[in-house]
């Protein structure tokens, strides 16, 4: 199947992601920030779909929506919203901010001008139908060991969280 209106969707999704990102840091209400963050993450999922990576897009939706849910609960239960709205929102670290923005800007300009030679002309055209299967074969075939170590690390983190959260086991 030929993609339809690719530039339109790309600019729309990127615009939404940027808009969500800006709203995330400028909203005073933390719940609104979390909502804007969801917008960004969903737009990213759309971009993954455009890159013919449906599995990554699906996982992005499931994991980040789940993650944001927890964030939401933290905001609702732990953060005193009336208190937050009175406090200063930015910590005015101008110098560090300018340095970081300059470095990032240089990187962007460099990639934009030199990108032609840095990256191959066209990415490898993976068949969309087999994307999930290929990821599975890589994870459970070539990178089995690393994958299992990562899962073990997560397990340790879960047990650690439970031990710290529960006073009496």
């Amino acid at each position, binding site marked *: *199947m030929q993609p*339809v209106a690719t530039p339109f969707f790309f600019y729309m999704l990127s615009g939404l992601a940027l808009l969500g990102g800006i709203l995330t840091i400028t909203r005073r209400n933390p719940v*609104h920030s979390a909502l804007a963050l969801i917008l960004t993450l969903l737009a990213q999922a759309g971009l993954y779909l455009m890159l013919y990576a449906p599995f990554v897009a699906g996982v992005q939706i499931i994991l980040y929506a789940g993650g944001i849910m927890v964030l939401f609960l933290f905001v609702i239960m732990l953060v005193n919203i009336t208190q937050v709205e009175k406090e200063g929102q930015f910590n005015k670290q101008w110098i560090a901010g300018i340095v970081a923005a300059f470095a990032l800007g240089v990187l962007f300009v460099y990639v934009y001008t030199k990108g032609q030679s840095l990256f191959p002309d066209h990415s490898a055209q993976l068949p969309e139908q087999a994307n999930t299967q290929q990821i599975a074969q890589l994870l459970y075939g070539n990178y089995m060991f690393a994958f299992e170590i990562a899962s073990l690390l997560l397990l340790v983190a879960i047990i650690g969280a439970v031990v710290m959260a529960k006073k009496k086991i």
Partner: protein
Amino acid sequence: MLEYIRSYLDSNVTPGVAGNVFWAFVYIVLIFLGLSIAVIAMNWLERKILAHMQIRLGPMRVGPHGLLQPIADALKLLIKEDIMPAEADKFVFWVAPLIVVLTAFTVFIVVPFGPTHAVTDMNIGVLFMLGVSSLSVLGVVMAGWASNSHYPLIGALRSSAQMVSYEIAMGLAVVSAVLMSSLNERGTGTLSMIGIVQAQQSQGTWFIFKFFPLGLIAFVIFAIAMVAETNRAPFDLPEAESELTAGFHTEYSGFRWSLFFLAEYSAMIAVSSIAVTLWLGGWLRPFSNWLTGSTWDLVFSLFPGVTFLILAAMCFYSTIRMPKHPYFRIQTMGLAGFGVVLALIGLVLFAPPVRDRVQDIYWFSVKVAFFMYLYIWYRGTFPRYRFDQLMKVGWKVLLPIGIAVLIATALVGVMF
């Protein structure tokens, strides 16, 4: 243009895969209409069946046997005053029902009503359905928080805790079904909804009967978790009316409330379709192994028409039993007319070209309808769980059994 429309008819795939925008749009409209009718029918059936379980009559006033009650309800909701609490967060309050409805309807683009009767066939179908339906809890939490009131907030917190914990058990059950779909020569499974049904077809068994009792246990886990996912009795803690008035949608009224209602029922249909697709063979007709041959194919293809004829016969029977008072004349005529329409649909479904195309949709819908009846049945028979019991069931019963079934399925699959 006509060529473009006609070109799809020769293809053997879903419109989304064929890239035909026109037919994809037609399917979307059809599914949307069908869902709306199903929700209306569910509304009436739920009240009627619950009433009969409790030896009542249920709605009887609006139309014969209360058939027009859902329409009257919908009209009432539309003209009801739409109240927004003064201290509510206006934007979030406004957007929450939209998110819930959008997610509930979006999942239907991958539901396979037949080998070609789906809007599209995604490579990540099951993942997409689980992911998008998990977004609906976001709408619920937003609704509860934005109402700026105690009961909705408690309802929303309960809802999110419940959905997040049951999603895990649900996911494990789904994974064991996906694992079963990988038992072929190539050794790779699929997450595509159509692909999973085709795997059941080629393996010659529905996954509920596969590796008995492993498939059955996974199915039961999913069937329990999906009731909790959709916030239905006996797991309807987020809207437990004796404790929380109406839970997260206490402050909603009129049209916004009806959106929550619509979303709840279409989410029920959506999770039922996942269960049907993964374990009950989707669009495949029952007994396709035992009762083979052209005669049985013919017999099973007559089922859709016969169903509609039976419904029509019930209408005619009720028409005869209507009171003979002139006050009921219009209602009697209306019921007879409804019966005639049903009979005509039934007769059309007997025509061979229609019969062959509608069969898949019919079997899928019948299986989903069975689940919808189960939902009503649960609500009529089970008392509501306490919240700590609900969490205990989710984390200490369903989750370990789910993992055990997953490991056992993998082991058995490797050995055979």
